[in-house]
């Protein structure tokens, strides 16, 4: 499997966060949410830097001259323009005979990336695709937003998708833009410019954000997930002509262990077939699935020939799932 990931050097532990939020019961949080630490970029480090580093790790064992397309998923681009994937082509010194584009998705990003990559392969447009997901949500968070600062971490993952990589099955994809308001950074785009004097507002007891920062209605996201994801899992199994018992492993987007527990139970998945991999990384948005995939393979939890369902869901609202065969 040609898949690597990169985590920033800075590690922010719960103990360190507890110094900023002294009333926070971090021991209870660790037990419920399953996150002990997360990696956070430096002030001058961006998602594109992480993308480059993850890709460089990958290129230690891959012939870069064969790459003919770059797909980069991020919601933290260096610039509105140009395309970050174009800059990545230059930084990696890849062939100029290479297509490149960014796509803006969060937690469903890796699954959608696989859908795009598969389409490029099947159409004959490309044969060796560098699929990169890279995210720095830490840069979107208000310093006094405890709820989200304890959940999110930064990371990037890079993979090569070609006819020799894991085989990619059928997809079930979905979108509900009515939920856009539930996970959003309102200012900073072209609709609402960044406000230097944006007012802080309390959105949950003791948690603050502003329109310049990320706002997440955790309860709505939770409710959406509980309603949409079990059905998505069943539909994906059916579309791939598989019974649930024939699927060897399930890797959901690693939002938080609390949600994952309920989703697993509601989807009726055995605990020994269900991936939990967020203790030391937190929720790294589009990178959670490839990181969990890599780690699960490295630990021997999955092996060549296994059928693994990948389920991504979150900001947009957007969701998608597929089954890969290793």
């Amino acid at each position, binding site marked *: 499997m040609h898949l690597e990931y990169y985590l920033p050097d800075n590690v922010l532990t719960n103990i360190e966060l507890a110094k900023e939020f002294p009333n926070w019961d971090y021991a209870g949080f660790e037990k419920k949410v399953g996150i002990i630490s997360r990696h956070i970029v430096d002030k001058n480090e961006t998602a594109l830097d992480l993308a480059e580093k993850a890709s460089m790790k990958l290129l230690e064992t891959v012939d870069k001259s064969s790459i003919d397309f770059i797909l980069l998923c991020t919601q933290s681009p260096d610039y509105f323009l140009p395309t970050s994937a174009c800059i990545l082509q230059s930084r990696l010194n890849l062939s100029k005979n290479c297509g490149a584009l960014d796509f803006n998705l969060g937690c469903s990003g890796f699954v959608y990336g696989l859908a795009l990559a598969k389409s490029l392969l099947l159409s004959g447009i490309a044969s060796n695709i560098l699929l990169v997901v890279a995210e720095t949500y830490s840069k979107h968070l208000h310093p006094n937003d405890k709820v989200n600062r304890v959940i999110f971490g930064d990371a990037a993952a890079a993979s090569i998708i070609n006819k020799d990589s894991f085989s990619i099955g059928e997809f079930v994809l979905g979108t509900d833009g009515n939920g856009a308001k539930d996970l959003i950074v309102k200012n900073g785009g072209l609709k609402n410019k960044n406000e230097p004097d944006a007012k802080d507002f309390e959105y949950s007891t003791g948690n603050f954000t502003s329109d310049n920062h990320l706002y997440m209605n955790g309860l709505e996201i939770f409710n959406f997930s*509980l309603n949409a994801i079990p059905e998505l899992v069943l539909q994906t199994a059916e579309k791939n002509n598989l019974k649930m018992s024939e699927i060897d492993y399930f890797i959901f987007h690693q939002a938080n262990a609390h949600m994952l527990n309920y989703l697993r139970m509601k989807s009726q998945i055995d605990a020994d077939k269900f991936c939990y991999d967020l203790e030391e990384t937190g929720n790294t948005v589009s990178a959670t699935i490839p990181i969990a995939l890599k780690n699960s393979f490295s630990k021997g939890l999955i092996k060549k020939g296994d059928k693994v369902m990948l389920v991504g869901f979150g900001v947009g609202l957007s969701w998608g799932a597929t089954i890969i065969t290793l």
Partner: protein
Amino acid sequence: MTKQEFYKIFSEKMRVENNLNEETSLEIFNSWDSWTRMDVMVFVDQTFKVNLTANDIMEVKTVGDLMKKIGENNIQ
């Protein structure tokens, strides 16, 4: 489910002493946070097959409010 059964289960979810009644305000408890609210949404869905939205749960200020959302027929 009886009211007493409900109070017992709910106090366990809230990690508080079971001396709850319908008038008990939830906002006095530190444990009435977003994680507990999620637990309650799942409990209500699984036990009573009632789907509480995020707005529903945010409107809950007392134990009685929650019981009303669940429905009189479900807790007697």
